[in-house]
Structure formats: C-alpha cells, structure tokens
C-alpha cells in the first residue's frame, strides 16, 4: 500500500474510549442484574412465608371452627372467621357449604346462608388449594367436619405481593451503591485516562507494525502522552538506529564488491546506452560493447567469436556488407523488428564505414527505438483523432450555414433550427479544445493547481441542483449520499468541479431512462472517497483498461448516438492524480459502472 495514501493511524483515544465504555456498560449491567435478583429472592421468600402462615392459620381455624360448629355456635364461628380475616391480612377467608353457599366470610356482607340446615352432604372434591384469589395468591381449602350434619369447606388466601417498605429500601440501597460504584469507576477512568492514552497509542503502533507499517514517523507516538510514550520512542530510535547502521555497513560492502576498475575508452563505450560494434572486412565482429550484447541478446564473447552474418539480423548484415564492399562511401541505416512476440522491440542499425590504408572497417551503432516508434504511432493516432473530432462539429456548422444561406434568411424556423445547431456545435468545439488544452498542459507538466479551501458539501449540492432537472427529464433517479460532517478539502476548486462534472455527466449520459445514478461521498482523517455509481450500459473488461486513454471510446454500438470527445475521463484522472489521488473504475456490461475517485485531504501539488 502506498504510504502517501494510507490513512493516519488512530492514536490515543481508540482503545481507551472502547474499554472505558465497555467497563461502564458491564458495571451497569451487573448492578441491574443484582437488583433484579435480590428483588426476586425477596419476593419468593415473602410469598413462601405468607403461605406457611396461611397454612398455620387454616389449621387453627379448622380445629376451632369444628368445635364451635359442633356446639352449634354459628355466630361465634362467624366472629372467629371475621377476626382471623382481619388480624391476618387475608385476601380470602370464607366457609362454604358443599353446594357453594357462603356460611361465613371475613366480610359479613357476603354471607349467603343465614342458618345452617339440619343436615347437608359431604364435600366431593379433595380439600386442597384450587384456583387463585383476586390478588393473584393461591386459595387454599380445608375440610371442616361437623359430626352428624356434614362437611364444610374453609377457603383461605394470603394478601397480594409484598409491598413492604423494606423491599423499597432494599432496591433503593442497591441502586445507590451501584451509582456510587459507577461514579468511582468514572473518577478512576479520568485519573487513568492520561496513562492509558499512552498505552493505547503504543498498542496501535504495535498493531500497525504487525500489519506491515515500517515507517518510523508512522510508528512514533507523541511524547506528550507520558513516560511510556517517551520510552517507546526511545526503543524505536534504538531499533531503527541499529537497523540503519547494519544497512549502511552492508550497502558499503556491496558497493565495494561491485566497484570495477575498468577505465579508458572501453569503459566509456560500455557506459553508452547505444550498442557499438566494429566489423572488419571479413564480416567478423572485432569488438562489441555491453549495450550491443544486451540488444542482440547474447554475451560479448559470443558476439566477438562469431561472424556478423550469424549474430546480426539478415538485413543488418547485408547493409554492413554493402557498406564494406561498396566502392563509394555509403552510410546505410536499417530498422529491424526484433520481437517475434512483441516483447523485444525495434532496433536501428546505423553503419559507418571507416577506411584506413588498405583496410575497411564498419562501425555499427545500434539504437533501441522501440519506445520512439510507439510514441510516434501514438502521436499520429492522436493527430488523426484530433482531426476527426474537430471535423465533425465543423462539418455540421458548415452545413447549417449553407442551409441558412440557401433559405436566404427568410424562413424563421430554418434560421432558428440552424442557429441552434451552430450554437451547440460551437460549444462542443469549445469543450473539445478546452479539454485538449488541459490534457496537453498536464502532459507538459505546465498545469498548476490553485489549491484553496473547498467546501465539498456546497460543491456537491450545487452539482446536485444542476443535474437534477436533466435527471428528472429522463426519469433517472439521482441520489446524493454524503457522509455527515464532510471536511473542508485543500484542492483546486475549478479543476475538481470539472472532474465531478465529467464523472456525473458521463453517468447520466450512459444511463438509460428510468435508471439510477448514485453519488456516495465518504471521508476519513486522510482522504475523501467519491463514488459515482450508475445502472447504465456498463463497460467491458477490455474497454475498462483503456477507458482513461486519450480519445478512447469503447467499441460499443450503443455509443454511436452518444456524443463525447473521449477526453473527459483522461482529464479527470490526470487532475485527480495531480492532487495526489487516483481514480478507478469497476464495471459490468449492461449492469452499470462505479467510478471511485480518492483524494487526499491536502492536494499534493
């Protein structure tokens, strides 16, 4: 990864804040869970105690009631029931006949049977608890036997859930203790924070080191973070110092071992980029320099041991032979394509005969002109493209002017239509020439960025307004999704606007009606990433590799009706690269494209 585009390492707060929040959350959860568990335990134990109490009261009431009823003291029995109900805070305390009629109740108004019959039946069901009282507590039943007359059912149920003040006191106490503990943790956290910041920064640096970061500047932490940070920096200093001294020592040894003692004319020839051969009149290679050996792809010894006819391409050998044997002085030049697979390139052999006394030698200079050949081809292609691009609008303008002249300016409709065409084509020409000048400026290295503060949000919102109408006309959904708090960028506002116009204009141009264009902008500490996504016609993998080349337009029939100079993306990439960023494309045919521009927070230039 390029260090220049790598985001700065997070420092200081990254781990501290995380652990601090985690600790506070765990503490809060622990306090809440403790309060809930204590409350539950208290409630269960209260209910159990109450049921035991109800059971004891039921047993006593059963014995006393049987005695009173046996002596036919119904009113005494009713008073006893009422008294028990009142003194024991019972929810239910009543006595029923087997047919359900209430004989006695804690609330006398509910009594349904004024006098007991002479005889009544036995209870049919088991005398146990059944159902629940109005308060939600269980209703327990007891069997009262009245000898010679029948059986009654005594029903008892305890009061509602505990509403004892002790319960509230307990919960409040737990809450208070929890709050105090949390406050204590916060105080501790604040005190430890300064120390932990240093440790957090060191941890980040260690993780960065493990992740492959090796730059000293990126691993160094601020000494203001405490003694640990200073110690870490000292350790780094020692480590890098040791590494550097080893490297220096090793490099010096390497240089010494590779230094050559060769001097003089031969050494000078060997330092030449071009190949030099001396060929005698027997077509033997008498001497070759290093560059010649590289270009002819064999060793100097092999070259010097063999004849020129064996070692050189046939056309070059013929040219040398011709120069050596010709009565007049000829200086032939031959260009030979050496690459069967297109890898090696094109060599130019320039032959200079040297005549001395009765001897003739040939000095052969071999130049690698592969890149010049390609550059020349590209230049010719560029000029062809320029001519083609300029000719089309010029032809349209000329035709429109001809039509206006023919109509002698009398037909207002023809005049208006042709003026529109002339206007549109003149603008197109202006755009092409402007783009070409910008590309030429960038390539010549003369384009200067005017770096200033750029409010990215305002710039993007303006762009959104400008393109919204065009998108609506074609029923394209144009959405801008900007990250909150986008920073102010240090960039060339005019050039950046041009780039965004190119990207967004292309996205709309190549998206069919009813599609979607989505602009997503995100930023971190080091860079801003602008994505322009569309659901357009897409770009094939082959075209995607060349889409940023000058004048390149994809070989797609669907583009025939869409105008474009083929310079917009070239310009966009060059401008972004001038800022120190880059632009990439991901695309699939018929699915759409995503152009991603990455810009550093501060322009490189």
């Amino acid at each position, binding site marked *: 990864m390029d260090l220049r585009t790598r985001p700065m390492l997070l420092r200081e707060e990254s781990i501290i804040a995380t652990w601090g929040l985690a600790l506070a959350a765990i503490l809060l959860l622990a306090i809440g869970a403790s309060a809930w568990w204590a409350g539950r335990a208290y409630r269960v134990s209260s209910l159990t105690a109450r049921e035991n109490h109800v059971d004891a009261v039921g047993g006593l009431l059963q014995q006393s009631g049987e005695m009173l009823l046996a002596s036919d003291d119904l009113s005494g029995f009713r008073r006893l029931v009422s008294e028990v109900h009142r003194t024991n805070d019972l929810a239910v305390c009543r006595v029923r006949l087997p047919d359900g009629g209430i004989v006695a109740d804690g609330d006398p108004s509910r009594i349904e049977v004024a006098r007991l019959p002479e005889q009544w039946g036995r209870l049919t069901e088991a005398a146990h608890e059944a159902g629940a009282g109005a308060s939600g507590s269980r209703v327990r039943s007891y069997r009262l036997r009245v000898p010679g007359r029948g059986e009654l059912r005594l029903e008892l149920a305890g009061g509602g859930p505990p509403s004892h003040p002790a319960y509230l006191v307990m919960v409040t106490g737990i809450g208070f203790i929890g709050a105090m503990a949390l406050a204590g943790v916060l105080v501790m956290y604040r005190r430890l924070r300064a120390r932990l910041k240093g440790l957090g920064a060191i941890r980040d640096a260690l993780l960065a080191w493990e992740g492959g970061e090796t730059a000293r500047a990126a691993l160094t932490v601020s000494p203001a973070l405490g003694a640990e940070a200073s110690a870490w920096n000292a350790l780094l200093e020692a480590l890098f110092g040791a590494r*550097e001294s080893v490297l*220096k020592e090793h490099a010096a040894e390497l240089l010494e071992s590779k230094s050559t003692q060769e001097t003089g004319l031969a050494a000078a020839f060997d330092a030449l980029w071009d190949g030099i051969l001396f060929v005698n009149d027997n077509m033997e290679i008498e001497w070759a*320099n*290093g*560059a010649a050996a*590289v270009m002819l792809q064999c060793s100097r010894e092999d070259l010097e041991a063999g004849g020129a006819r064996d070692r050189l391409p046939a056309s070059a050998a013929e040219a040398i032979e011709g120069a050596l044997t010709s009565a007049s002085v000829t200086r032939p030049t031959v260009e030979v394509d050496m690459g069967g697979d297109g890898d090696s390139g094109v060599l130019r052999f320039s032959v200079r005969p040297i005549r001395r006394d009765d001897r003739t030698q040939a000095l052969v200079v071999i130049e690698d002109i592969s890149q010049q050949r390609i550059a020349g081809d590209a230049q010719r292609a560029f000029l062809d493209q320029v001519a083609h691009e300029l000719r089309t609008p010029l032809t349209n303008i000329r035709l429109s002017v001809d039509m206006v002249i023919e109509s002698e300016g009398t037909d207002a409709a023809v005049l208006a239509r042709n003026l529109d065409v002339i206007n549109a084509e003149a603008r197109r020409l202006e755009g092409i020439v402007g783009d070409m000048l910008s590309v030429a400026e960038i390539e010549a290295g003369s384009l200067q960025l005017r770096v200033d503060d750029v409010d990215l949000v305002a710039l993007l919102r303006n762009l959104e307004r400008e393109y919204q109408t065009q998108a609506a006309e074609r029923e394209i959904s144009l959405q801008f999704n900007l990250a909150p708090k986008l920073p102010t960028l240090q960039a060339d506002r005019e050039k950046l606007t041009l780039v965004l116009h190119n990207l967004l204009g292309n996205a709309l141009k190549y998206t069919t009606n009813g599609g979607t264009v989505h602009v997503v902008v995100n930023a971190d500490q080091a860079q801003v990433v602008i994505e322009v996504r569309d659901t357009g016609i897409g770009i094939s993998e082959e075209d995607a590799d060349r889409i940023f080349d000058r004048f390149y337009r994809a070989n797609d029939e669907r583009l025939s009706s869409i105008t474009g100079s083929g310079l917009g993306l070239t310009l966009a990439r060059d401008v972004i690269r001038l800022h120190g960023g880059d632009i990439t494309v991901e695309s699939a045919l018929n699915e759409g494209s995503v152009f991603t521009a990455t810009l550093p927070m501060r322009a490189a230039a």
Partner: protein
Amino acid sequence: MEIKEQKHGAVLVLRPEGPLVREDGEALKTRALEAIRRNFGRVVIDGSSVSYVDSGGLEALLDLNEELATGGRCLKLCALTETVREVLDLTELAPQFDLYEDPNIAVRSFV
C-alpha cells in the same frame, strides 16, 4: 511477494507489492533479469507498493543495476515510498539508480 507487470508502450513496469526483504529480493531479481533480457533493458521498477527494503532487497537492486550497467543502462526506480527513499539516502545508494517521481515520467525517459 506479488510482482505485477504492466506494459507502457515498449517499456515494462514491474510493481512489487509488499516489503522487499530476503527471498523477495531474489524473486524480484529473477523476474526483472528475465524481463531485462527479453526487453533490451526497457524495465522500470515501480516502488509505490514496497513498504520497506532490507539489505537483501538492496542487494537485489544493486545486482540488477550491475546487470544493466554492463549494457550501459541504469536501473530506473519510480514512485518510491518515503521509507524506501530514506533507506536509499541513508545507505548513500540513491545515486546508483535513476529515480523518478512516477511511472509515466520513468517510461518517457526511454524515448
């Protein structure tokens, strides 16, 4: 270590990715030597993705340079990261190479 190749006209740009250390240096050397031989030395090494270079990596670069020097050429390095540039300066090896800001400038130097 992954080494990516890209043709810029007749020039081959090799872009090693990751730290150039120990056996990675040897791998780069083998790959570059092979490219130099088949391409008349029109090779550029793009160092934009090399985070660090150790003595093994330096040795590989010097070996390549030596191989090119026999043909009157010099190893062209471009877009070096700050760390690698620091190492070259520190070891005083920087003058041994042709250094360029970016691959395009390095490629144009062959014209």
